[in-house]
């Protein structure tokens, strides 16, 4: 053997028992795969749909307009003193990101069953790539939001600094739950059909079309147990400078998001080794 030979990696294949470590170092080593898969999802979505990018703009805009006619004009829901379109669009941005990450990450493992049974890489990458591709929609919605803010001469000032934090908590929660859903989808195929229904209900249970201020004060601590309440109110606070965010809601939301991510990652690791056999 020549001296110039690079050190060869040595590893041992054996049965894994119980709770395995998360091994983020390995995910990092395979970051190219994460990037290529996310890139593929994004390319495919814009290439396969005729309207392409127009569709991504139109979707939240139309939803925002419909909601402002029904809930703003007809039902006259209060909107923290802001134009209702801005109010609902800020909420929709947060919700659509959560919804997109949940759906893409959730269905990702089943959709990639061909890859999972044919090649090895850390399985965590698949739902993460799904989540990453959902961020593109968010970016488009963000641009749209900026346009709306300029049109309405609205500026939240220093509150804008809250946006990255709200985004982070939103992603933590969505990815955590997305990991749960993706793993459950592999085991229980009927879960796939239940998810859109559950998300629909969840949306109306969260302050998307209404503000948390509409909820009676004595019920608010209970509402805060839904982590999306805090996330959506934080989006409004950051973008519009007004919301009913309070300390208890923030604490419950952050705790909920961290718990979701930690438990999701642990459960995913636990069942990861069975994916190739179930698919």
């Amino acid at each position: 053997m020549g001296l110039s030979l690079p050190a060869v990696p040595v590893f041992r294949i054996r049965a894994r028992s119980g709770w395995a470590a998360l091994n983020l170092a390995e995910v990092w080593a395979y970051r190219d795969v994460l990037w290529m898969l996310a890139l593929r999802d994004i390319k495919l979505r814009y290439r396969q749909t005729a309207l392409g990018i127009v569709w991504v703009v139109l979707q939240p805009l139309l939803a925002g307009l419909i909601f402002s006619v029904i809930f703003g004009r007809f039902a006259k829901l209060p909107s923290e003193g802001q134009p209702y379109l801005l109010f609902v669009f800020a909420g929709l941005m947060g919700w659509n990101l959560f919804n997109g990450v949940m759906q893409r990450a959730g269905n990702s493992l089943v959709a990639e069953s061909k890859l999972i049974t044919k090649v090895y890489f850390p399985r965590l990458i698949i739902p993460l790539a799904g989540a990453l591709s959902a961020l593109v929609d968010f970016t488009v919605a963000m641009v749209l939001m900026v346009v709306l803010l300029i049109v309405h001469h609205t500026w939240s000032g220093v509150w804008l600094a809250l946006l990255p934090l709200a985004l982070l908590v939103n992603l933590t929660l969505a990815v955590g739950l997305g990991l749960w859903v993706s793993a459950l989808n592999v085991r229980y195929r009927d879960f796939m059909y239940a998810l859109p229904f559950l998300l629909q209900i969840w949306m109306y249970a969260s302050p998307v079309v209404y503000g948390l201020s509409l909820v009676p004060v004595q019920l608010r601590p209970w509402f805060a147990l839904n982590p999306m309440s805090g996330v959506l109110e934080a989006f409004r606070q950051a973008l519009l400078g007004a919301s009913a965010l309070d300390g208890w809601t923030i604490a419950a939301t952050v705790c909920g998001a961290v718990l979701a991510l930690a438990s999701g990652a642990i459960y995913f690791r636990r069942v990861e080794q069975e994916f190739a056999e179930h698919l």
Partner: protein
Amino acid sequence: MDDVAIRVEGLGKRFRLRHTSSGPHYRTLREDLLGLPRRLFAGLCGQRDGREEFWALKGVSFEVKRGEVLGIIGRNGAGKSTLLKVLSRIIDPTCGEANVQGRIGSLLEVGTGFHPELTGRENIFLSGALLGMRRDEVRRRFDEIVAFAGVEKFIDTVCKHYSSGMYARLGFAVAAHLDAEILLVDEVLAVGDAEFRDRCQAKMRNVVESRGRSVVVVSHDPALVRSLCDRAVWLDGGRVRTIGSASEALHAYYESRLSETGRITDAIERIAPGFVIERVTLNGSESRRVLIARDQRVIEIEVVGTLSGCFRVALEVRLYDSSGAVLAFFSPGHDSGRVCDYGAGPFRLFYKMRLPRLLRGDFALALELTDPNIQGWVTFGQSIHLEVEGTNVGSGILVAGAHCGWQMLDCAEDSERNEVQRSDLDPGSLNSIDALDTGHGGLQS
């Protein structure tokens, strides 16, 4: 440094099968929730639910040396693919372990991660990443990959417009340029045209010889194992039956296959959707053991079944000696372009095949229904044991230069019999081809 690339010790893999009456079954949440009380009760009473355990691999131990090509042979369901999947880390073993020194590249399919809506260029980067190449590595070897696949002109075309050959070539080209110390290959060489197959084999040989890499290859093709592999492992029912030189292992494997009994239809290894095979007879018998006299040169093969759509179907037969080497090939579809299109409904193929002059001994026949050069429909493997009786004047094949290449076999000339066969048929309900070759009988090389 140790000269062992992979050391496998006592490897075992257990699957749990669920018994269901209707086809493939996925667990549903509803069932699990509703079944929870029953399962708890069954658990308390010490009963097991309707699951059966099945060891796909058991106590498998072997070594792959650096710079060696190891073949894995065995019949379908022997655990070959499971072994490759465990070594590729796609599934975890239940017990035992494998120590691997070096980066593993696994080629369990051609075009890993290829997406038909992406361009050739995009697919190279995606597939390369999935196989474990860094992006700059792919970039560096990009031109080489494209040239090897011969798709320069179409590299920015969406892959769904590729021919299946181009698709397969590009898929293999990416994998062939993977800088892994160990390659795991699952029959992917069986794609593409003969010229490309040769190029792949040459490439693999080259990789092994020039750079001291190791290759583990699973194959059904004894010719490939013989030509490519230094040693081979014969897996049978998840256990290692023989480890030895490629020809030793192949010999042991074919000895055992020749002693199998049963009906020919039991030996179907692969069947395309839309095909139902009801009966296959050789000289009128459905048995997998066929005894023929030494001077009997013509055998009759009949295949009867049902199609659920329109297919172009022809019969191919390969003749093997007892060590698994191919002696001869019979395919009027290739030879004289005689193919037949069949509509939905019952179909019948009837061929008379002229054998080479065989001496006393054991031979095997492999049948296949194909659309010649395009696609295989039904594969029977080396399933028919042909025993040739005769006086003891040595055994084997009585043709000079038999080991220099395959012979093409002809249809037998026997028009009288064919007329009889034809009148037996109900022309309204049965599709049929009766092979009728008026060319001279005998051998061509």
